[in-house]
């Protein structure tokens, strides 16, 4: 099948990588051409935050898509997608730290401790760090597949934290955060359903 051959080819990985960079390049382009609007720092903060959530959702979508479309090769893109989620998360975090707060540590610590929406966003970001670090084949070997998999379920927590962070931030129009909430809920429900079916099957097999 042509589709499967495309998925397993080498250049498609490069193409996916390049596509993932597009939002960042667009931001650079906008900042060079004065396209960031009246409040550029806010624009960058929102754009990088949005893309972090999008990449977390896309990453969480890989497993369901593999199963639903019967395209196991999609797994080849999961790491790069997840790492780009982390990449945009870093940009988002650094925008806040450097551009917004300009290393005002006093304010930064106060924000993290006192503002629930920052506390939860910060937590979601921190949880992504071990996942990014252990994303290599070496770490999968060192941890063992089972343990590695359990560790990487932290992305569920991180995605939920990201959605809550967004929901708590907006003033009145909660439609966009709710849309992300629905997407994450569906992606997580799929996993619960799949694991339920699996344990049922094992139970049936064990009984027979």
């Amino acid at each position, binding site marked *: 099948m042509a589709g499967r051959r495309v998925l397993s080819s080498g250049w498609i990985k490069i193409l996916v990588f390049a596509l993932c960079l597009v939002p960042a390049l667009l931001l650079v382009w906008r900042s060079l051409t004065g396209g960031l609007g*009246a409040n550029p720092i806010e624009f960058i903060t929102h754009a990088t935050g949005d893309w972090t959530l999008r990449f977390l959702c896309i990453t969480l979508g890989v497993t369901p898509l593999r199963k639903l479309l019967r395209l196991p090769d999609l797994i080849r893109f999961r790491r790069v997608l997840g790492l780009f989620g982390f990449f945009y998360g870093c940009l988002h975090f650094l925008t806040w730290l450097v551009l917004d707060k*300009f290393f005002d540590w006093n304010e930064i610590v106060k924000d993290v401790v006192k503002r629930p929406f920052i506390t939860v966003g910060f937590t979601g970001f921190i949880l992504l760090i071990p996942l990014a670090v252990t994303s290599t084949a070496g770490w999968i070997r060192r941890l063992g597949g089972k343990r590695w998999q359990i560790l990487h379920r932290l992305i569920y927590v991180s995605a939920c934290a990201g959605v809550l962070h967004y929901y708590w931030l907006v003033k009145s129009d909660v439609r966009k955060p709710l849309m992300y909430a629905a997407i994450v809920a569906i992606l997580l429900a799929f996993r619960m359903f799949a694991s339920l079916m699996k344990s049922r099957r094992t139970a049936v097999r064990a009984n027979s």
Partner: protein
Amino acid sequence: MLIQRGPEIRFSEITPKDVYLSRRGFLALPLAGAALTAGNAFGETKLEGITKSPFSTTDKVTPYNDVSHYNNYYEFGTGKDQPAVLAQKLKTSPWSLKVEGAVNKPQVFDMDALMKMAPLEERIYRHRCVEAWSIVVPWIGFPLNVLLKKVEPTEKARFVAFQTLLDRSVMLSESAAGIPLPYVEGLRMDEAMHPLAILCVGMYGEALPKQDGAPVRLVVPWKYGFKSIKSIVKIKFVEKQPPTTWNISNPREYGFYSNVNPEVDHPRWSQSSERRLGEFLRRKTLMFNGYGDQVAGLYAGMDLRKNY
């Protein structure tokens, strides 16, 4: 008191008028398409005979394009760039402002009457949004107390309630805007009578653009921006503290007074500093937005933590 003014720089001197006008047209055209009614979307009427005011700040004026393209006007979208496009559908002429309630002379004013009510002054004010950004705007208008005195408030008039137009045919629904409509605001009588509070009909030498609250809005510079209600159709004098939109929507976060106060944080973010549009570093937020000398007396003896 001698109030020093910096050199006079009009936005129109910084950017040639035809250039910025065509820029707005360029921006608005592909976005708004047919929704735009040509003529009033491309530059506003120039206002004549404007006098200077000693109340003006010497802070650097924010570029016109930022003030007209970074708006909170939820009836026309919750994104900052949406009102500049969607508010062009607002019909601002003819306009009537009804003044009623506890007054001896309830009246309805059209824009003509409002424009002639008092000499128009330019007031360059700091404008601090509750979202921790700020701008400096050369508003044009006259003291609100001129209009208030004209209708002769009675003994019972203790508060003034304001209401924005509600035109469902051009505005978002309440659920899309996320706030109850029509938008309502209120001031205590002494606040409304304060000379700093103005009824505003223009900015940067011209009539107000629609997204900035045309044709007539309130500007109360020592309070968070949402108190400065836009596109006013009704002013009512009342005995009890009137409901206000953001307070109804989220009473824990937005109080009736909503004076700019760096010491009382919004539950979700700090109010101690703000980002002035066009500046990289945050600046410290000033008590009463820097108008404490004039207005602090209004709140003597009040606990501003409770009355946020």
